[in-house]
């Protein structure tokens, strides 16, 4: 059955950052230059072609964009300036919005005004919310930072954090199921048995924690930077989700909360500044293009990290009221950042990438076992 073409697809992707794909003349230099491109996932040329031809369904079912780590070597060698690296990035943004069942992701990616308005609105609501809670439901006294009678008592914030976490995880999970449906249950995909799903399950945590495919890129700096950023974030997340009480049990703070807190704070601030200045200087091929969502993410991350540090400094300096106010400002950054990024924007890749690698492996294993694609049922066996 012929595949339908959507001629508007390439214009649509422009809003997601893929502006130059039309220039590609399919020479294949990019696919040959890519250190990750390997049979049967040969990219980015084929993905560029799908985009040029408006083959929306194959593109939506594709795992290729998630197998790319944007080292930018393809864009450097491209003779047409078609920016295959950035086009793949645009495709990842588009796929994120396609997997998202709410439509929020699509809105935020296509309109930076909407994204900014959303961030500010959520921040404002967060600020008002916590301020109100602090006076009415919490400790009531802005000058108390530590202990159960703190303005923002840790046990209450703990409940808030976990509730928000579960909601976001739920949203992301639904989107992941949609991803599974698009990529694993389309006409060209082969059915995968449960035992195969089980046998490769370890791939998920391995790639999630190490991002080890990144190391195949010639330039090792992006992998290093990303690993530090990610581990710092996970550390900080663990501290907040599990050890919040210890962080507000002052004025003496636990040594491990201190150590890990400081290390992860340095990691977070350091890597975000490194990324921001890289994007400003356009020092590498993968920094030449910045979509508004890239800036918003880095901006939020830096804001959250810095306010977190300032909050700690004020606390240790014996200024609990200032620390509490900074805490609220910090939360005004944290809530929109997580609420937007995890299910609807950049951070969803923490799930989609490992899943893509897992699914790719499953497809190859199933095909090796002789499975036939959904769209092409096995030939009926002749009756003996």
């Amino acid at each position: 059955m012929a595949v339908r073409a959507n001629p508007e697809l390439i214009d649509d992707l422009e809003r997601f950052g893929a502006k130059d794909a039309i220039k590609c003349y399919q020479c294949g230099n990019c696919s040959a230059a890519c250190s990750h491109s390997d049979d049967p996932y040969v990219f980015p040329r084929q993905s560029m072609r799908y985009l040029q031809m408006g083959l929306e369904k194959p593109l939506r079912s594709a795992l290729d964009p998630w197998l790319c780590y944007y080292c930018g070597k393809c864009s450097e060698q491209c003779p047409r300036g078609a920016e295959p690296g950035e086009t793949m990035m645009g495709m990842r943004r588009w796929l994120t919005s396609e997997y998202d069942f709410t439509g929020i992701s699509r809105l935020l990616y296509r309109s930076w005004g909407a994204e900014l308005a959303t961030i500010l609105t959520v921040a404002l609501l967060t600020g008002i919310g916590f301020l109100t809670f602090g006076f009415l439901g919490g400790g009531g006294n802005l000058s108390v930072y530590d202990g159960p009678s703190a303005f923002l008592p840790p046990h209450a914030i703990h409940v808030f954090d976990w509730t928000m976490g579960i909601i976001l995880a739920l949203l992301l999970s639904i989107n992941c199921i949609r991803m599974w449906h698009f990529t694993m249950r389309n006409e060209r995909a082969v059915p995968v048995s449960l035992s195969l799903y089980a046998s490769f399950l370890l791939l998920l945590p391995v790639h999630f924690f190490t991002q080890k495919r990144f190391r195949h890129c010639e330039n090792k700096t992006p992998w290093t930077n990303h690993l530090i950023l990610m581990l710092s974030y996970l550390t900080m997340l663990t501290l907040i989700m599990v050890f919040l009480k210890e962080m507000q049990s002052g004025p003496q703070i636990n040594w491990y909360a201190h150590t890990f807190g400081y290390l992860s704070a340095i990691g977070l601030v350091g890597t975000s500044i490194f990324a921001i200045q890289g994007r400003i200087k356009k020092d590498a091929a993968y920094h030449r293009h910045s979509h508004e969502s890239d800036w918003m993410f880095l901006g939020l991350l830096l804001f959250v990290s810095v306010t977190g540090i300032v909050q700690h400094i004020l606390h240790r300096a014996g200024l609990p009221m200032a620390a509490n106010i900074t805490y609220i400002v910090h939360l005004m950054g944290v809530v929109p950042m997580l609420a937007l990024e995890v299910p609807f924007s950049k951070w969803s890749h923490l799930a989609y990438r490992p899943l893509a690698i897992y699914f790719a492996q499953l497809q190859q294993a199933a095909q090796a076992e002789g499975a036939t694609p959904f769209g092409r049922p096995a030939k009926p066996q002749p009756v003996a």
Partner: protein
Amino acid sequence: MRESVNQIRKRSVESKAETVTTSSAARIGVFLLREGNDASAVLDFPSIADFAAQLPDVSVVRTIAVSSAMDPEKLAIEIKEATLNTIVLAANHPGFYKPAFSRALALAGGDGSQIRLASFGERGDGVSTKRAKGLITCAVQGVPFKPNPTHVAATFNTATLVIGGGVAGIQAALEIAESGHKVYLVERTGTIGGRMAMFDKTFPTLDCAACILTPKMVAVSQNANIELLVLSEVQEVSGGFGQFQVKVLKHATRVDSDACVACGDCARFCPVTTASEFDMGIATRKGIFIPFPQAVPNTYMIDPAYCTWVLSDGKKCGACAKKCSKGAVHLDAKDETVELEVGNIIVATGYDALDARRVERYGYGTYPNVLNSLEFERLTNASGPTGGKIVMKTKKLNKKTKHEEWVFEPDGPKPKAVAIIHCVGSRDKNYNAYCSRVCCMYSLKFAHLVREKLPEAKCYEYYIDMRAFGKGYEEFHERIREEGVSLVRGRSATVTDRDGQLYIHGEDTLAEHLITLPVDMVLLSVGLQPSHGSDELAEKLCIPRDGDGWFRELNYNSEPNTTQREGIYVAGVCQGPKDIPDTVAQASAAAAHALRSIVGAEARQRAAALQTTLEAAALAARS
């Protein structure tokens, strides 16, 4: 917020009736387009703009740089705001930009055909601010521009200068000389023949290049009307059409070409060995040498940069002079400058190959068996270092420098697999964005030569698009495919060396598979670029070059052989990449242009002489 096209259309439809009835007077907008090339730089745009502004009926004058602001929608808004109904486009080649303005005028509700062109680039004679103003005045008033009749010098010099002795220069020189007129053929190297003399076979007929070129070369040497100046360069050009004065520096060959019989005794005793330029560095020559056996003039010459006698100020060596039985060697000969007077100049300076070291990932200059196209031409040519055998380089100890070198030896190992990569440095915005036109065809030719000389070898060709546009070219392409060459559609990404074996890595975009193939030799089909020194020559001749550095023709379609300076013509690759048939055709065309002026001048001279005779006779009859 920007107005959408539909909004503009809506507004213009509504007010179209208004535009037609309220004013029948012309409201003219003059748009001066700066094209950013050499010719534009000569014009005084502010002065032209001021002049245009005070012409009758001109309401708006805009100066625009054409790299930006060619958006018809933006222009339509401007046109609508100024209620223009006529546009004058003034530029070197305004026709090129006319579509954008037609559309803009239509979008603004006007009549898209009310566009007049003031073309500075037409009619040669050089662009000037004064002429530009004249052109704009006529366009504004809607009358044709008639330039003053060309001032032809009272004495028109019927000699012609041809700069460049490749096949284009040779053809042009022969056309003019065989009509009975004098030609000076100035060539920078020691022999005429150019690139074509380096080739082994030509596409698509697989004729031997030397076999079709050398008869023309010999004709040049034997034609009394052609004065051949080799190892010579144009220093200065002054004057104008019909009366150019050209200073040419003739480097001393230090060998009397009339006495030399090219026996080669001198070279046998010469102690100096260096890389041969004619062989693109894959073979050596002596300090006294002949570029190749069929060189014209067929004489040896001394390279002063390496000659021991010259470098020691006459104290050492001098063996060649002693050994020459004809006494042809004059070691102390000096360079001389000659002054030529000519009426026309034909530029035929050809091309250089792109330096493949710029494309690092192909390993040119790093791996010994990665060659560029001209090097391979010399390798397969019977007059090359291996007598035409295709072999891999072998390591050899240079006894003089004590270093190991990779050289071509006739008994070198035969490659088992050869890969040819198209579009090296062409169609690539990182190097040259243009297509070099001949590489697809010469790559197919190489594949044929490899398969013919090495029937056991595998041959792979990596291409992006196969450009086989000429007569017999598609048939040639089919033939090569049938000869067993593997044509892979995909641009290779890398040539790498693993444990001494070269591997070429690319994507077969038709099969959608990545392929890594072991090969022994890689041929890079490098792009063409203007000959080194073209920029200086263009300045000396005061002719412009286009954005890629090729000499600019007057009009790509209708005047492809003339330049903006009357009396100076272009022939061959120096005007843009092309194959041998097109080069020869263009050379004959340039010669025809020159002959047109020469024959015209002679006719005028005869008419003037006849007039004088008749007047004298009439006077005598009356008295």
